[in-house]
């Protein structure tokens, strides 16, 4: 039996409806984040451990020469601060995708996906919401770091914002792309090991790449190809009011590629469909 068209004409969605939806998703993500205090604390403790302990220990081992965007000799703590900011976002991106896997298993994801608004838009809102949460974490970190004598120029706190939004979106969409391929929550720990650690260590977060090049040219090329390196450099330059154009280009293109990939993977006729029923019986 085929159905007959109704007299209703499709009315589409107004800009205000899109904005209401976006605001709602960001608001809910924010509320959830505030309810999970331990998540906030651990998101802060992680980079602070690196800053207070690791960096203090390494200060004498690694000398940093004057490299852009820095104009003077800097302490190692100052060098790794942008890397740690990006690390916060990396963990946050992976964590919000972890929560997507969890939501999918628990059924919460369905609430989002039965919204009549286009699914690509819903996922984009979800990414923006995750990024907004990561901004809260990064600025909290910057505040504490300020007391630790990591004092970028005051306008840097503003100029770094667009860089953080872009890198947050890139890492969030990477997480989302990965989450679409994960069947179960348990598989996630492996992904953390295979994604977070290699990305973090094979980057310019902890050591300048010219130092890496002296040690191993191959590792240097790997680091250069790592999008995380460019997220770190984008943030580093932006924090000092400068733009690293290559990093900007790399981060922007990776964001687009990962985001399209994630939206593609969450298309009902593809990714999710192959996986069998979520949560319920078969």
């Amino acid at each position, binding site marked *: 039996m085929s159905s007959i068209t109704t007299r209703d004409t499709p009315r589409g969605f107004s800009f205000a409806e899109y904005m209401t939806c976006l605001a709602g*998703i960001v608001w809910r993500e924010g509320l*959830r984040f505030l309810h*999970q205090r331990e998540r906030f604390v651990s998101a802060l403790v992680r980079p602070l451990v690196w800053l207070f302990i690791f960096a203090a220990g390494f200060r004498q081992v690694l000398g940093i020469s004057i490299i852009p965007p820095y104009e003077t000799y800097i302490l190692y703590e100052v060098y790794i601060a942008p890397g740690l900011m990006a690390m916060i976002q990396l963990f946050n991106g992976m964590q919000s995708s972890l929560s997507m896997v969890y939501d999918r298993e628990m059924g919460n994801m369905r609430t989002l996906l*039965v*919204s009549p608004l286009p699914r690509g838009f819903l996922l984009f809102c979800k990414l923006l919401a995750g990024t907004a949460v990561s901004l809260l974490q990064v600025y909290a970190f910057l505040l504490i770091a300020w007391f630790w004598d990591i004092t970028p120029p005051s306008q840097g706190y503003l100029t770094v914002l667009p860089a953080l939004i872009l890198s947050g979106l890139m890492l969030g969409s990477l997480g989302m792309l990965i989450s679409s391929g994960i069947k179960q929550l348990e598989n996630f720990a492996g992904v953390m090991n295979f994604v977070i650690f290699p990305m973090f260590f094979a980057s310019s977060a902890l050591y300048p790449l010219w130092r890496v090049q002296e040690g191993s040219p191959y590792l240097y090329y790997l680091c250069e190809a790592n999008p995380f390196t460019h997220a770190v450099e984008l943030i580093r330059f932006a924090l000092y009011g400068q733009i690293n154009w290559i990093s900007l280009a790399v981060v922007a293109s990776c964001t687009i590629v990962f985001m399209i990939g994630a939206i593609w993977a969450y298309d009902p006729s593809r990714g999710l469909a192959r996986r069998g029923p979520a949560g319920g*019986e078969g």
Partner: protein
Amino acid sequence: MTSPAPISDPREVPRLDPAAVPALSIDGVSHAYGPRRALIDVSFNVQPASFTALLGLNGAGKSTLFSLITRLFGIQSGGVSIFGHDISKSPGEALRLLGVVFQPRTLDLDLSLTQNLLYHAALHGISRREAATRSAELLNRIGLSDRAGSKVRDLSGGQMRRLEIARALLHRPRLLLLDEPTVGLDVKARADIISQVRQLVTEQGIGVLWATHLFDEIMPSDDLVVLHQGKVLAQGPMSRVVTEAGAQDVNTAFMRLTGAQTMPGGGA
């Protein structure tokens, strides 16, 4: 507590000729997970202002069907329309007319009742002010106004279900899907929810598709679709299905219908 009042806005009753456009039309839908076929050429309609019971054992394919209607999975073959809007071609228009209560709980346990409702309203693009009014109204009608600010975690199972139904009605859909909504509830809570949903049908003209494996939830006046191992074995008004199966009640009818089917590989 008295049985909950109907929880939708009477002004929103659609003015459509019920015979012209089914609320839900499932047309030759098949679905497979790899080699396992979950649905085989399933076709049936749900009319506006009707209560259609989708009866099947666990594993019959009910949840798969719900996932297809709600666009969680893509449709492999066949078609699904909601008030004439094809779910694949114009999902936005179709989903706008659809309210769903899934079998697993899908509330944010750490958020309050109101926060859960406001989030859902936002997902439908309903402005904050309008959403606040509707939420307060709905909470009042399901008798949970005094709990508006509590965390959902502190509600009983029956209260959570009532909240989920209220949430599904927040955007004033004309078709409501419920996937085994009374599972795990006590007798009183079950009766409350059933009467609440039946009132929506009679008073608001909402078309309801109610998936269940509990025979006593179905009334003789309901439409019935019997789903077994992914196939529709019988459909029509319950009284007719029972008569045609040569049975006295829906229980026996179901046993006869499904008993006649030997298992052709793949258990239920």
